[in-house]
């Protein structure tokens, strides 16, 4: 299904300019707001997309490690959430409230870099 072509075959020369319809939408994050409120508007608007992503990550992790190990991970994520530095901990609480995710899931999403490098 894949074509493992020679990477030197051709350099793209006509991709620019990108289509305006592919541009990511723009939003403002107001740093003057209390951290818990900074993401509320944006996350509420994109709530379904956030839930779909986290749901998939959750199911994937569950299928990989099994239910018992998954519970240990979730319990530890709860611990990690309480020790994250300000204002990020507060922002994650705000994201959790706005999206309906529990704190451990919102934390997993936000520390995914550290988990994934392994």
């Amino acid at each position, binding site marked *: *299904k894949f074509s493992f072509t020679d990477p030197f075959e051709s350099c793209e020369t006509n991709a620019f300019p990108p289509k305006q319809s592919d541009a990511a939408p723009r939003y403002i994050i107001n740093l003057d707001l209390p951290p818990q409120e900074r993401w509320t508007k944006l996350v509420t608007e994109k709530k379904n997309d956030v839930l779909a992503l986290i749901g998939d990550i959750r199911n994937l992790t569950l299928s990989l490690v099994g239910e018992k190990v998954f519970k240990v991970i979730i319990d530890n994520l709860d611990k990690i959430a309480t020790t994250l530095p300000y204002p990020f901990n507060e922002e994650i609480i705000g994201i959790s409230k706005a999206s309906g995710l529990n704190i451990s899931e919102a934390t997993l999403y936000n520390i995914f870099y550290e988990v994934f490098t392994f």
Partner: protein
Amino acid sequence: CTSIVAQDTSGHLYHGRNLDFGLFMGWNPKTHTWTIAELLKPLVVQLEWQKGGKTVYESVNYVGYVGIITAVKKGLFTFSLDERFGLNGGFVGLLEWIIFKDYKQKWVSFLTREVMEEAKTYKEAKFMLSHTRLLAPVYFILGGVKSGEGSIITRWRDNFHTDDLLDRMSGSGSWFLVETNYDQWKTPPFFDDRRTPAVHCLNKGGQKNASPKLLYNVLSTRPVLNKLTTYTSLMDVNRGTLGAWLRKCEDPCWPW
């Protein structure tokens, strides 16, 4: 991921990047896509971070992810982050955080938020990104505003190595830096070599043609563009502009 910092013949700097994510996280054989990469695309947004009604910096984020992985601070510096894999990586750092309560180390994406909010010069940003103890290894790619201000900061959790623009090294060229997910002083593995085609296409384009157009075209060349690429971003530090576009790599296309 692939990040590029390039300087044209007048010393003007451009910074571009592809954000690739979701390897081995659910392949859809019908659509030939990675599940997580596709789920991330609707969450890509360009953010203006404001204080007192003024924009402090701009970034490209996934909604709900509070850290910074692509950003520009107008007139000061541009920034991108590429993943660096390692056994003494995030997992060990995480265990130290949980078991030994080592809260002095920094989470990579939170450090980058601090850099975007606090650093007032390219040098200050470079120092912060180089000298802070981290939970995980990472590549920081930093572009400045003056000619020659560009660097790849290869980070271990405690140590760092810097490759600077105009200091020709094996992984990049004389007027550009290319970082994928491998150390500059090592040859990328044959099964994931996005650096060689990027370097080849930048050299083919030439410094006299260094521009957002060249960077976007290079970042659109397979396998630099691949099935994991969620967005391409272009940044111009002088103008303070940042753009991000969702990507789709039509078949035939490399899975990573």
